[in-house]
C-alpha cells in the first residue's frame, strides 16, 4: 500500500506537535522516521494508526483519501501499530492476547487460532507458548506477540514505535529478520527510532523530523553527518572551558543498577563534585530520569552503592537524602512537584517543621519575599495551578533550601519561554558558583552545551560517554545519543 501524508497538523492545546508534515511512503519498503525527543514522530504515527486525531491535513492510501474516527477503521484498512508501551493484557495468556479483538460472538474457534499463532510464530523464528501468561514474557517477546497478532489481522502497513528499546540484541536480530521478510512480502514498514545504527541497518529510506517539521529525506546509502545535522540542527560554538576547579566529591555512584522506565539503568559509576554543572543527554527513556531518581533517593537501586558526601546512603529514602542536602525537582511540575489547591503561602508553610500551629504570618512574609526575589508573577494567595509554567518552575526553585549540596533537576526548562529559561539558568549558575552540584537532564543538546561543564550521555540504559563540555560538540554528542559511540 502506498501512503501519502499531506500537510499534517496536530495541536495538543498550545503545543504544535506536527507542523505541516508531508511524506510519501512506497509499498514494500522499510521507511525510517528519525528525530529527537518532541520532534513529533510518535504523534504522526499515532495519527496514521488512528489512535489520535489530526487537526489538519490529509492522509491518502493508494491515492484515496481516508478519515479516521478510531483505531478500528485503521485496522480494517490494514494499518497496524506496535506502540512503545505495549498495549496488551498482562493477566491473560498469549493465546488470549492473540485472539482479543479478532473474534466475535459466542463461539471462538480456539483451536484454529492456536494453529495460526504457532504457524506464524514458526515462520518468523519466534517461540510462542500459547498458554503462558503474558506477564511472564519479556518486553521483546510481548512485542513479537503483538507483531504476530497484527499480521494475523492481515495488516499491510506495519508501524513500529521505538521497537528496539529494552529488548536484547538477540531479539533485535530476530525482529530485524522478521521485518526484512515482511518487506519482501510487499508489506510496508514504518520504523520510528532515534537509533541511527538500527535505521541505517534496516531502512531503505529515511525521513528526519525536527520540532514538528520535516527537515530532510534521504535514500540509501546514508550520509551520517548530514542526518545528524538534520536531527539536531546547528548551534553556536560552546563557551570556552571554565578554569574553575571543582571541589570535593558530593555524589559517588558505583556500579548502580536499577529498574524504571523501559531501560532501567545498568552498571552506572559516576562521580560528581562541588560546583560542577552536569548535563544528562540522551533521548527520552534512555535512563537519565532513572539515574536522577536513583541518585536522589526516590527509588532504590537493585545493586551498587550510592554515597552522598562520603556517606553511604543505600537503603535510605528520599527524606534521608534530603536531610543530607539533596533536592530533586521533577519535570511534571503540577503532577509531582507542586500541590494543586494549595496557595504559595501554604507551600511555604509546609516547610515549617516545628510547632502545632501554622505560622501564617511568617509563611506569608516568606512567600512575599520569595515572590519578589524570584520574580514570580503571582500573589501569596495564588494557588499553584493558577500560575503559568514558568512561574511554577520559579516557585519550585524558590521552595528549595538556599544552599543545596546537590540539585537534581529533571528537564528544568521544559515548556518555558525564553525569558524564564534565561532566568532559571542564571539562578542555578549562582548556586553552582557557591559550591552546589547541579545535575540536570535535558532534551535540548544546545542547552546542555551552553550551560554544563560536563556531559553524560545515556543510551539504552547506560552511560556511554562522560566528557567535558568544552571537549565535545554537537556532532559528537548526537552520535553518542544515537548509539554510535
Amino acid at each position: 500500500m502506498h501512503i501519502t501524508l499531506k500537510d499534517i497538523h496536530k495541536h495538543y492545546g498550545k503545543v504544535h506537535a506536527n507542523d505541516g508534515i508531508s511524506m510519501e511512503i512506497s509499498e514494500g519498503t522499510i521507511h525510517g522516521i528519525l528525530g529527537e525527543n518532541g520532534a513529533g514522530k510518535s504523534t504522526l504515527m499515532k495519527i496514521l494508526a488512528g489512535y489520535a486525531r489530526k487537526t489538519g491535513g490529509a492522509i491518502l492510501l493508494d491515492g484515496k483519501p481516508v478519515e479516521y474516527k478510531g483505531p478500528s477503521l485503521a485496522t480494517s484498512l490494514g494499518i497496524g501499530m506496535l506502540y512503545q508501551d505495549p498495549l496488551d493484557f498482562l493477566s491473560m495468556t498469549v493465546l488470549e492476547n492473540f485472539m482479543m479483538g479478532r473474534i466475535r460472538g459466542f463461539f471462538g474457534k480456539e483451536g484454529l487460532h492456536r494453529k495460526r499463532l504457532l504457524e506464524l510464530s514458526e515462520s518468523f523464528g519466534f517461540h510462542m507458548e500459547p498458554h503462558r501468561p503474558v506477564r511472564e514474557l519479556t518486553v521483546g517477546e510481548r512485542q513479537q506477540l503483538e507483531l504476530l497478532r497484527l499480521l494475523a489481522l492481515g495488516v499491510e502497513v506495519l508501524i513500529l514505535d521505538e521497537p528496539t528499546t529494552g529488548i536484547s540484541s538477540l531479539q533485535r536480530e530476530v525482529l530485524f529478520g522478521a521485518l526484512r521478510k515482511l518487506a519482501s512480502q510487499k508489506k510496508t514498514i514504518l520504523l520510528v527510532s532515534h537509533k541511527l545504527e538500527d535505521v541505517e541497518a534496516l531502512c531503505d529510506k529515511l525521513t528526519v523530523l525536527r520540532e514538528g517539521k520535516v527537515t530532510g529525506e534521504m535514500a540509501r546509502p546514508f550520509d551520517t553527518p548530514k542526518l545528524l545535522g538534520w536531527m539536531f540542527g546547528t548551534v553556536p560554538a560552546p563557551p570556552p572551558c571554565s578554569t574553575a576547579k571543582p571541589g570535593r566529591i558530593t555524589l559517588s555512584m558505583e556500579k548502580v543498577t536499577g529498574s524504571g522506565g523501559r531501560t532501567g539503568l545498568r552498571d552506572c559509576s559516576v562521580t560528581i563534585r562541588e560546583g560542577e554543572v552536569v548535563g544528562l543527554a540522551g533521548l527520552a527513556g534512555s535512563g537519565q530520569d532513572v539515574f536522577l531518581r536513583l541518585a536522589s533517593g526516590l527509588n532504590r537501586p537493585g545493586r551498587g552503592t550510592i554515597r552522598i558526601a562520603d556517606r553511604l546512603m543505600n537503603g535510605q529514602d528520599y527524606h534521608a537524602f534530603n536531610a543530607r542536602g539533596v533536592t530533586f525537582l521533577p519535570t511534571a511540575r503540577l503532577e509531582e512537584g507542586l500541590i494543586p489547591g494549595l496557595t504559595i503561602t501554604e507551600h511555604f508553610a509546609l516547610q515549617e517543621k516545628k510547632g502545632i500551629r501554622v505560622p501564617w504570618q511568617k509563611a506569608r512574609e516568606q512567600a512575599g519575599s520569595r515572590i519578589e526575589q524570584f520574580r514570580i508573577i503571582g500573589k501569596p494567595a495564588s494557588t499553584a495551578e493558577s500560575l503559568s509554567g514558568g512561574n511554577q518552575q520559579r516557585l519550585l526553585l524558590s521552595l528549595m533550601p538556599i544552599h543545596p549540596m546537590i540539585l537534581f533537576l529533571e528537564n528544568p526548562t521544559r515548556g518555558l519561554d525564553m525569558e524564564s529559561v534565561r532566568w532559571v539558568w542564571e539562578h542555578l549558575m549562582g548556586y553552582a558558583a557557591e559550591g552546589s552540584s547541579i545535575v540536570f537532564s535535558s532534551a535540548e543538546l544546545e542547552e546542555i552545551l551552553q550551560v554544563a561543564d560536563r556531559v553524560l550521555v545515556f543510551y539504552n540504559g547506560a552511560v556511554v560517554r562522560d566528557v567535558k563540555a568544552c571537549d565535545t560538540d554537537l556532532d559528537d554528542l548526537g552520535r553518542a545519543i544515537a548509539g554510535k559511540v
Partner: protein
Amino acid sequence: MPDDPKRTERIKKSLLEVLVMLVGVLCVTTLIILVAGAPPFEAFKYLLLGSVGSWIKIGQVLTGWIPLCLCACGLVYSFRVGLWNIGVEGQVVIGAICGTAVLRMGLENGSPTLMIMLAFLGGALGGGLWAVFTGFLKTKGGVNEIFGGLGLNFVAQGITLWLIFGPWKRPGVASMSGTELFSNELWLPTIRGLRLSPVGLALTIAVLLGTAWVLSRTRLGLALKGIGNNPRAAYLHGLKPNKYFIIAMGFAGACAGMAGTFQVTGVYHRLIPSISSNYGYLALLVVMLANYRIWGTPAIAFFFVCLNVGSIQLPMMLQVDSSLSGIVQGIFVLAALLLYAWRSRRSIKAF
C-alpha cells in the same frame, strides 16, 4: 478591582446552581410521595412541624444531631487526606462498646461525672484504635480502606451481638433490647423538659470548632490537605503520607467513638444491637453533600436529622413509611454529584 465582577459572577452562578438543585430535589420528592399515594403538601408539613415545630421536637433533633455531627467531623479528617472511611460505622459501635465497658465498672470506682468522662475517653480510644487498625491494614497490608473498613464494621457488629447475648446479657433472658439499663446516675444529665444533653451539645460544638481549627490553622491540617491533594508532591515536600493516613484515621475513629459513647450514655442508656442508628453511614452522606468541607457540615447534619425526626410521624399520619427521610437525603447527594459533574464539565469547556 478587576477581580470583583468575576467574583460576583461566580457567586451568582453558584447560587443559581444550588437553586436548580433544590428545585430538582423538591420535584423528585414530590413525585415519589405522589406515587406512594400520599398528599405531598401534608407530607412536607409533617416533616417540618415534626422536626422544628416545638421545643421538644427541636430537642430531639439536637439529640440526633450530636452523634451525626461528631461522626461527620471525624470523616472530614479522613476525606481530607483522601480516604473513604466506610468503617466509620464500626468505629461508632466499638466506641459504644468501650463506653459501656467503662460504665459497667459501676459507681464504686468513682463519681458519676468521672465515670462518664472516662467512658467518653474510652469510646474515643476504642473508636480511634479500630480506625487505626483499618489504616494499618491499608498502609502495611495493601487492603483498601473501603473493604477493610467494611469488614471491620461487620466484625464490630458481631462483637456487639456476642456481648449482648453473652457476657453482658441481662439477668434472666438475653434479648434484642440490649444490655441492662445503667443506673440513673450514669445517664447524661438533660435540660428539664427537653431530653437534650447540654454536655453532648458542648462536646459536639467543641469538636466542631476544634476540627475547624486543626484543619485550617495547624501544621497537621495543612499536611492532611497537601497529602489529600497530591501525595507524590507532598512526599517531595518532606511529608510521609502513610503516617498521616494513620493519624487521620485515628481522629476519625476517635470522633466516631465518642458518638458511640454518647448513644450509650445519653440516648439509650445501655448497649443495644443497633447502637449506631446508622449515623456512621449517614455522616458519610452529610460530608459528601458538604463537598467534603467542615463549613456546611453542621447545617447539613441538622437538616438531615430534621428529616429523620420529622418522618417519624409519617407512618401514623399518612400511612407511609418513615424511610422517606432517607430517600430525600439520598436524592440530595445524588443531585450534588450531578452538580459536581456539571461543574467539572463546564471548567473543561472553559479551556
